[in-house]
């Protein structure tokens, strides 16, 4: 049902070389996605190749993450890269078109760059009006 899928974990320095090789094979860029892990970001670049889907994976540090842009190889990659910057806070260097953080208008900056959303505070107990005793069981 799902055709052949390959995933190759490569060094960040080898990203452009790996993407260029796929471009030379006539691959189509399918998606670029990031995952926030406790100690790093995991970036996956997926390409449609003749016999299925080929993905390259690189890792970037949580502190000041920077990756090179592949938009010089795949022109349309700039949109994914701007998304990665706006939602995860990953700096993509050398984008063909840089929207400088204005592509996604989100209330929280780099909302997806945090590991887990902070736990919601329990609702505070209603305050008793002055002069009246507090309700039983409510601190």
């Amino acid at each position, binding site marked *: *049902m*799902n*055709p052949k*899928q390959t*995933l190759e974990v490569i060094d960040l320095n080898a990203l452009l070389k790996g993407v260029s090789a796929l471009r030379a094979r006539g691959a*189509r*860029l*399918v*998606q670029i*996605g990031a*995952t926030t892990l406790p100690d790093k970001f995991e970036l*996956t670049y*997926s390409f*449609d190749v003749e016999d299925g*889907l080929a*993905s390259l994976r690189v890792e970037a540090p949580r502190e000041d993450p920077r990756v090179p842009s592949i938009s010089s190889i*795949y*022109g*349309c990659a*700039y*949109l994914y890269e701007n998304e990665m910057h*706006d939602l995860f806070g990953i700096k993509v260097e050398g984008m063909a078109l840089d*929207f400088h953080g*204005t*592509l*996604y*208008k*989100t209330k929280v900056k780099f*909302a*997806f760059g945090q590991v*887990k*959303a902070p736990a919601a505070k329990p609702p505070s107990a209603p305050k008793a009006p002055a002069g009246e005793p507090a309700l039983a069981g409510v601190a």
Partner: protein
Amino acid sequence: MARTIIPFGPQHPVLPEPIHLDLVVEDERVVEARPSVGFVHRGLEKLVEKKDYQEFVYVAERICGICSFIHGQTYCQAIEAMMNIPVPPRAQYLRTVWGELSRIHSHLLWLGLMADGMGFESLFMHSWRVRERVLDVIEATTGGRVIFGSCKIGGVRRDMDAGAIRNTLSELEIIEREMRDLTRVFLNDSSVKRRLSGLGVMSRQEAHELGCVGPVLRASGVAQDMRQLGYAAYGELEMEPVTRTEGDSFARCAVRCEELFQAASLIRQALGKIPAGEIGVKVAGNPTGEVIMRTEQPRGEVVYCLKANGTKNLQRFRVRTPTFANLPAMLKLLQQCELADVPMLVLTIDPCISCTER
């Protein structure tokens, strides 16, 4: 020549969805289009940290209000692939039928919006009148009109009995007859042809390089359709991708018109050979691993990337929608176009921004 920036959207008569474009124009010619989205960003990908993987089917289905069913189906397929769940054949056929009904109603919706954008009001109303019939069939078989709620991990929630199959087939005959009358106008009317022919031409090479998907890609001559991967029951049905070679707005319209009949044929084939049996299996445990699932939405290839670590919450849920993949092409088409052609070129990719915002 002096440049002017004209804001376009997020509220605009021809825009069904909220996208904002800063159009840099010289006289009446657009030289650059700068997009911004995020007006309806819901952070659904992040919500996966709070909802368990079974509940999340409901969230996935609500990513889009048009192609909702296929979103739910793709999510379920991804989880099923991760957990090696054998989905009963009858459920696979039912998924195919509902997926194709979705495609018909989505394409009819787009044809109506396109006619409305051109000022062809009667054609817009007829397109949506026929679409209502499709929604009635969907309601009769699933209970929902937009959100079907029929797909679940391991199968489907509802079956179609012999009476429902008979009614669907007889309704399909009427719908097909009406679609034929409708598409005859789209494909032969001189005002439609003059408005769309030669507008926003994209070569095969450009469409491939810009990462286009769906009817936008096929209208430029690339015969790629994710249904050829054979998911659900597609591997057992006859289907060839619909293509055109002109690569202009008229070709994109023609591809969608032809896909209406292709979808009807697939429904007829699927209902003709639907096997008897169970419609779902019980699912136990939590998923582990990673999977990328691709299916064909009405707007093109949708990509689901899921990562799980054995807990009830997925570690990562990422969706690349077809509209997102077609946005670079839209921005390219807008460069050097006439200002008056902007609405047509935006509509021509069938943008679903809410889907893209997820």
